[in-house]
């Protein structure tokens, strides 16, 4: 186990290093200087600005400086808004985005698993068909469409929930619902199919023969094994939810990290795009690392030191 964790950890550092390097060189491949504006600036001012952002240095010096500051969790300044740094944006926006993401994941996992179990227990009955129809529709509707539908129906027409911002639990209902539907549908489908498989296995029959109550069989004996595929796909779901926060925050005018990121794309604020991408990637890669480890803990049958040939 220890060796596995160390190996995964090194792998994670490697991936973060690659994404940081990739980001740096891609951003410097953009034609023109990031300082260029429509207004013509005085040459001396331009030179001073370049000196301030160290753009007058050779590329490799800039690269090492950048990597050095990344290692100390300094994600650099903003060019369009000189009084701000990416770190300040992160401090202000990230807690909100994190809150949105965490609530979404909890809702999606709980309701998805529950729906999947119910569908599996009522296999080929009305509830099963209903749940799976709901799941396929949930997967097919993009989250931004879901968000606008919810706003239009529940906020504008019926006036039940506030349509935008992030202030009270009431404000959270619509964005979380819009973001959670897709992942919930995927989890429900996965849980259902793996639950169906697990329920036919001998150890479940054995448990039933021993007279254990059905509820206990499902939650104690079947669920743990049925959850494995769900844990496997958690990484992909996390990535989806994370990128989903960009659009959801834009639509609901939530002042989170995603909104700053989208703004920085629209303003072509390269240092901010660079800083946020690296931060997001590192965060996501770290989450994938955690998922891997949870997977290893949950399933003792998995050989943690994998041999070549079994991916």
């Amino acid at each position: 186990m220890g060796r596995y964790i160390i190996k995964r950890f090194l792998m994670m550092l490697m991936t973060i290093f690659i994404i940081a390097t990739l980001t740096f060189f891609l951003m410097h491949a953009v034609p023109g200087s990031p300082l260029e504006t429509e207004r013509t600036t005085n040459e001396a001012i331009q030179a001073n600005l370049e000196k301030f952002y160290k753009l007058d240095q050779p590329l490799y010096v800039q690269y090492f400086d950048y990597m050095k500051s990344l290692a100390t969790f300094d994600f650099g300044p903003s060019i369009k808004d000189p009084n701000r740094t990416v770190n300040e944006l992160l401090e202000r926006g990230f807690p909100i985005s994190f809150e949105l993401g965490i609530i979404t994941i909890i809702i999606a996992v709980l309701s998805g698993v529950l729906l999947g179990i119910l569908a599996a227990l009522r296999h080929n009955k009305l509830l099963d068909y209903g749940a799976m129809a709901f799941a396929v529709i949930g997967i097919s509707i993009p989250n931004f469409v879901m968000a606008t539908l919810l706003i239009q129906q529940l906020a504008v027409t019926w006036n039940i929930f506030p349509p935008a911002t992030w202030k009270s639990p009431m404000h959270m209902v619509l964005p979380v619902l819009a973001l959670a539907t897709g992942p919930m549908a995927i989890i429900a489908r996965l849980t259902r199919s793996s639950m169906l498989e697990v329920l036919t296995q001998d150890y479940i029959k054995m448990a039933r023969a021993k007279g254990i109550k059905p509820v206990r069989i499902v939650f104690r004996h079947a669920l743990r094994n049925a959850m494995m595929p769900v844990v496997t796909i958690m990484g992909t779901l996390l990535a989806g939810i994370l990128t989903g926060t960009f659009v959801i925050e834009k639509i609901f005018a939530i002042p989170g990290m995603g909104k700053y990121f989208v703004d920085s794309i629209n303003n072509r604020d390269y240092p901010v795009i660079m800083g946020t991408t690296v931060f997001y990637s590192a965060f996501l890669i770290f989450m994938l690392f955690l998922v891997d480890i949870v997977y290893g803990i949950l399933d003792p049958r998995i050989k943690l030191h994998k041999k070549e040939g079994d991916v």
Partner: protein
Amino acid sequence: MTQIRDDWFHPLAKDGDEKETVVRPSLSYWKDAWRRLKQNKLAMGGLIFLGFLALMAIFGPIFSPHSVTIQDLPNQNQPPSSTHWFGTDESGRDVFTRTWYGARISLFVGLMAALIDFFIGILYGGIAGYKGGRTDAVMMRIVEVLYGLPYLLVVILLLVVMGPSLMTIIIALTITGWVGMARIVRGQVLQVKNYEFVTASKSFGAKTGRIIRKNLIPNAMGPIIVQMTLTVPSAIFAEAFLSFLGLGIQAPFASWGVMANDALPVIISGDWWRLFFPALFISLTMFAFNVLGDGLQDALDPKMRG
């Protein structure tokens, strides 16, 4: 001790041939898969819808008397009527016509992304799986690192650098998208290459290229096709998502994602048709590909062959 005499033996009547003839036509793997797919009504519904969509994407704009790009300001934001079936947008352009143009672009992006992923994935995964050993280990280590990169973030970065256009969107989507396909191809090839018929092929002196083309690929095709059907909707979704961030196809042309994004400011004022039609077609297309992919997964699974 009796002697064995010839007249003990006489030939059997010639009715044996009839029992040997095959009554039912033999089903190849593909015919059998098609038969099973046809039984799945939902998947067939998806297939028919996609056929309809492809036809409308090609011929839809021809039937419409309205232009996709020419603005008609007096007629802006009209609700659906007999002249404008799906209404008009803020520049007075016909939403019906634009929806089919959007279908062209969205389907093109989806299909191209799936095709390019397919070719790169087959090549890379095929070589890694077939060669095995150190080649495989090195190639898969690279894939593992690429797989860890957050897909949409890389796509966003590339588009910021290259500038959004139809070509750059497809490039950005495939540059990291092929990794998933390569993993699946490799897994399949690893499994198939140990079968006896591959050994037989080798003992006849078939070259690597021939074995990959004739033995490995056809037998590994099931999961690969399923993966392709699932790549198309995810590419269409990614394109819509990028349009939503302002990194999509540029005006005056429009994909469904661009149309949905443009419709956002007016949705509150009650101009529902602006969002409804592109959103409906994105959702229906993703739905159709998803149910078709599910159906194919069952139909192509050799374990399900009865």
